[in-house]
């Protein structure tokens, strides 16, 4: 029904952006964090409130707290100070943001999102701003500005696409992170971020699955993988002395279609005889702390190294997840390292030394699997994926915070025969966000998610019409959770899967029983018919 799709009014923006008034509407906001979550995490100003309320019950000295918080962060982060000062408002970033493209709200232009903060910075931290006020682009910090910040800093997925195009590399993700840190100081946060954070802190994972539940889920997956293959697949939990600790996002063992990716991992590990273990204590690779503050990120991330040390593993392997890898790649070692109790990762099957992980000692599963395939260590039958016409969505963080672009493509091209790229302005470092990252993937925010995901969906539609693509693969748990809804709305008929799900389909395992269906239980395309289909 794309006729009734969210209307995007591309009228030129009018009026003056310095008016902070925001219309809060259901569908485009996330609800406030429940007090119990703030209390559990020891965060300030727990209370019952909603963004739709007139009174946000801010602490009496909220203004002083915000300004002092800003001052502190300007001293601690060169990025923050620099990005407050050097923007020339050339506008190159404007039409790069998926939220701007999908909503046509001019304050969603990345430059504008940053100006919301810069205008306050100028007023309180620069001479020209203090002297000339509005003429110098300065604004008073008022309660309306706080509300505006809340609206727009929780309407940015920290995907960093705008930064790719900025001539100075100004990164809106940094500004949004600062904005959210500041808002957290006065208790303006969302439940979709803080409940997973509180769960992760207490139980070990975002979904709040307790250890016995974790074991049940893992055992269930192992049983299912055994049933599919006719082999006895077991998953060791918290086994000391294993060579490798495997950490994945919790959605992999609790949500669909992530679950099929988990089956793929388990089959792979069984086939190559990997000496590994998983942990209920460190049962979350993802990190919703990234979406609230640097401190929270560090608090949640600490478990991974602690558990690796306790279990005495040699190195750590990480599953398919986007923001998880931003944290692991760019923050973990700095925050919770050095990991001098681990060894430089070596693939036990191929002898490959993962030199690029010499310090962090954590390898991405796509790096690991691509290496196995390259060395011919896996028997693969790509025709088992012939029922899929595959495209690949680069998840923002592995693409722009890491550069993991070729490894998943190499795997996909090895396990399937019908792979088609989306247009080049929408993939790799220019990939469009799913519109639900950075803690915005909740249903109360659905309208904004559908708007934000529109550019991505638009590119999927293109390859669907051109090549008959019916499967969008990705390596991000948030993608897997939210893209199905997005595609159902904009491009019905395209499914979502992880890269290791397709690997699991194609993997010919030693001693496996004859397989006639894929991990989802859908029958493989008959040999002849599949040839004709793609002739």
């Amino acid at each position: 029904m794309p006729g009734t799709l969210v209307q995007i009014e591309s009228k030129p923006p009018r009026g003056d952006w310095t008016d902070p008034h925001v219309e809060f509407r259901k569908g485009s906001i996330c609800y406030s964090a429940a007090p119990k979550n703030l209390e559990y995490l020891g965060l300030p100003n727990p209370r019952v409130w909603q963004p739709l309320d007139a009174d946000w019950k801010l602490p009496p000295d909220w203004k002083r707290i915000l300004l002092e918080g800003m001052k502190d962060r300007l001293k601690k982060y060169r990025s923050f100070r620099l990005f407050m000062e050097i923007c020339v408002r050339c506008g190159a970033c404007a039409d790069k943001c998926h939220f701007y493209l999908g909503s046509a709200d001019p304050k969603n232009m990345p430059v504008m999102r940053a100006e919301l903060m810069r205008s306050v910075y100028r007023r309180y931290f620069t001479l020209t701003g203090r002297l000339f006020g509005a003429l110098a682009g300065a604004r008073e910090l008022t309660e309306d500005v706080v509300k505006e910040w809340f609206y727009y800093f929780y309407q940015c997925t920290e995907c960093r696409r705008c930064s790719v195009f900025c001539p100075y590399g100004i990164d809106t993700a940094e500004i949004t992170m600062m904005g959210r840190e500041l808002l957290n100081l006065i208790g303006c946060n969302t439940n979709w971020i803080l409940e997973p954070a509180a769960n992760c802190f207490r139980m070990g994972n975002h979904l709040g699955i307790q250890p016995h539940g974790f074991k049940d889920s893992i055992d269930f997956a192992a049983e299912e993988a055994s049933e599919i293959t006719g082999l006895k697949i077991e998953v060791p939990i918290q086994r000391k002395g294993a060579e490798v600790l495997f950490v994945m996002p919790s959605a992999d063992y609790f949500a669909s279609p992530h679950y099929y990716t988990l089956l793929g991992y388990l089959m792979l590990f069984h086939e190559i005889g990997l000496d590994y273990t998983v942990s209920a204590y460190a049962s979350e690779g993802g990190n919703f702390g990234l979406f609230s503050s640097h401190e929270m990120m560090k608090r949640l991330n600490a478990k991974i190294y602690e558990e690796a040390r306790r279990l005495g593993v040699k190195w750590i392997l990480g599953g398919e997840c986007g923001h998880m890898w931003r944290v692991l790649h760019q923050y973990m070692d700095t925050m919770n390292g050095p990991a001098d109790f681990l060894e430089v990762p070596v693939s036990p099957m191929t002898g490959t030394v993962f030199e690029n992980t010499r310090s962090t000692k954590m390898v991405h599963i796509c790096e690991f699997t691509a290496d196995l395939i390259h060395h011919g260590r896996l028997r693969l039958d790509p025709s088992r994926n012939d029922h899929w016409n595959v495209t690949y969505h680069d998840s923002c963080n592995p693409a722009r915070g890491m550069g993991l672009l070729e490894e998943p493509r190499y795997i996909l091209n090895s396990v399937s025969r019908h792979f088609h790229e989306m247009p080049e302005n929408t993939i790799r470092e220019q990939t469009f966000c799913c519109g639900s990252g950075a803690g915005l993937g909740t249903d109360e925010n659905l309208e904004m998610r559908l708007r934000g995901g529109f550019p991505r969906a638009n590119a999927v539609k293109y390859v669907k019409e051109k090549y008959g693509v019916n499967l969008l693969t990705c390596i991000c748990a948030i993608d897997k959770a939210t893209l199905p809804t997005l595609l159902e709305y904009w491009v019905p008929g395209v499914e979502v899967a992880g890269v290791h799900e397709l690997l699991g389909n194609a993997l010919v395992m030693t001693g496996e029983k004859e397989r006639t269906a894929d991990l989802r239980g859908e029958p493989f395309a008959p040999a002849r018919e599949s040839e004709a289909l793609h002739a």
Partner: protein
Amino acid sequence: MRAFWSLLAVAALVLVGLAGAAAAGGRVILALAVPYAAFAVFLGGFCWRVVRWSRAPVPFRIPVTCGQQKSLPWIRSSRIDNPFTVPAVVVRMAGEVLLFRSLFRNNRARLAGERLVLGENKYLWLGSLAFHWSLLMILLRHLRLFMEPVPALVNRLEQLDGFFQLGAPPIYLSDIALLASLGYLIVRRFRDPMVRYISLFTDYFALLLLLGIAGTGMLMRYYLRADIVSVKQLALSIAAFHPVVPSALSPVFLVHLLLVSTLAAYFPFSKLMHAGGVFLSPTRNLANNSRSRRHVNPWNYPVKTHPYAEWEEEFREKLKEAGIPLEAEHAGNARTD
């Protein structure tokens, strides 16, 4: 409205210049005091800003990667757009500073019915590049006024710049490029609704000021010829800190000088500081090697975590029931004492 105020500000400066040129003491102030003061503010302000930036730590290694990472030896990495080493970062930065690499990626998104179409758009890149390079060319040509004998390089540049020998005196290519690109940047700020929406006073002011400088400069070269001997006499004396004010300085020249001085003094307090800041941007000037070499955060501090022992204590019964191995199985009994 913001554009109007900027225009008014620049016009006022021109008037001040003209009035000063006519007044008795005005010439000395405009030719000596203002340039010296402006230059001092420029130098001091620029250094202060750069020092303040460089003293702020870079706690995390956060490059924006724009190409394939260096991982497995058989995967070809994008050495410059995703640099792994310091030399590669230098090349990346050179591309940013000299060629505006990131801006070169620019494209334009537009809605066509239900489709989003991403089309090429290199105008902004071209306009900015032409503007900055021609400005540099013009600055270098001005060295002729401050040096005696004139360096061979400056003469060479001038020859190159006037290569086509059009008109008398020959028109410099850099002048045409500067006017055209400034014109483009100004028109774009007014005509593109998105850009107009985001533009502040400072955005118009910087452009109009530059236009005023370019205009008065060209006026002096092509129409109201300035007495170049006096100008050079002044420039040399200023550079030698032996200031002498020649009597033949024209009003246009004094206005030109005032506008240049304004730009210099305004520079450190404005967005024009992007000239210094671009070198310090942590998303561009860091190597993407954070998994291979540990990046140290100078203010890293301990945080409250949920240690394993506490976690095991909290979930002891459930762990036992599920058969997950415990760390403190025996210690649990010993705790009763």
